[in-house]
């Protein structure tokens, strides 16, 4: 599975989303905020930080980094690829 698909499945599973499948999540669409259809909030954001740490060993520890990395699936995939241990 490519990274973006993996991220979509991870978000659905770990954030316990209901009635959402991977096909519903657009690569470039916003993940957070009122523009997003996913209904994620601040608690989901901190959990996503943990999920990314656990699955990929990548740390997203402060608000500014999170704003950039969590902007969309594309942005998150990009951030992980650049910051993965060994890359």
């Amino acid at each position, binding site marked *: 599975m490519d990274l973006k698909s993996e991220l979509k499945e991870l978000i659905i599973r770990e954030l316990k989303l209901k009635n959402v499948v991977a096909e519903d999540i657009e690569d470039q669409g916003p993940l957070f905020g009122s523009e997003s259809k996913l*209904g994620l909030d601040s608690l989901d954001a901190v959990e996503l930080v*943990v999920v990314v740490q*656990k699955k990929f060993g990548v740390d997203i520890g402060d608000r500014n980094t999170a704003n950039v990395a969590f902007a969309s699936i594309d942005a998150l995939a990009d951030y992980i690829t650049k910051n993965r241990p060994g890359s």
Partner: protein
Amino acid sequence: MKPVGIHGVGTALACGAGVDALRIALREGREAGRSEVGLEGLEDFIPANRTRRLDPLARMALLAACLSLRDAGLRPDEASGRPTGIVFGTALGPQESTFSFLEDIIGSGDACASSFAFTNSVHNLPASNMSLALGIRGPMRTVTAFGHTTAAALLSALHWIREGVVERVLLVLGEECSAVMEYVVRRFGGGEGNVRPFAPGCTYRSRGGCAAFVLGGGDGPYGRLASVEAGLSEAEAAERAAGSDLLLCAAAGRADEFNLYERLWASHRLVGAYSPVYGSLPTGPGVDLAVAALSLRERTVFAGPGGAWIKGSAVSGAEGLLPGAVAVAGVEGPGRFTLIRVERR
């Protein structure tokens, strides 16, 4: 003193969800056996996307709460229509979340501590989640004091209603059963088979379950809370229970139970322990309160499963009895008791 009544009852127990399931189990004498508490049906009250992060205990508590509201003739969105408080009583707290948090830090490392698991492991989260789902903005209290829990929870609710802090209280009492607790019970001597209150040896069978009540001013369809007393000696509890038609003991199959309740049950002519129906719970008096309420509403003494009778019996002593007052007793600690009396005129 302002009367406080039981206006709605909801249960999520091993015998099923809702008072109807409890009533059927009581009438037909069904035992909890190995059944798990079913958590389906919450989506009938609250959309699934709004309950996605709830853990099993929060889910169970919210389901029982919604069922009690429906029983009181209220939709979930009507719960916040009047000043309402929430009291949640639990001895063991959120199990799955507590151990899931440990699982992550032990299995994956300190940096992988889950914020979802930690948040949900905080004991007042079931109450907070009820508040969020139902829009309730009144006072809230989560109490966790083992045998003292049921009385403490009721006393909080009574104060708030009588003093006019709120018009009604959603009172939920319950426990989650987990693999860890089952292991602990097994090591303490419990195991397979069914709960046998007062039988020799340990027959404790942890099952999990919640009972919820809508309490408010005036007599409800289930009657009124005539008194809630804590810290009574066995003699005092026996004396208080004397005027009731039926005494329920929250005996749960512990090995020392016979001694704990001996004088109390010896003093009353009709004594029942219905834990075989719903399993062993530290907040057992809470479920017994639901049984007492049903007994009064139905004007009946339920036969229950064979193991439920200590004294008198559904055939020879209780047949034809139309109970107007039921007492619920629970052990708080060595030599001290909670006694709750519910009456229906």
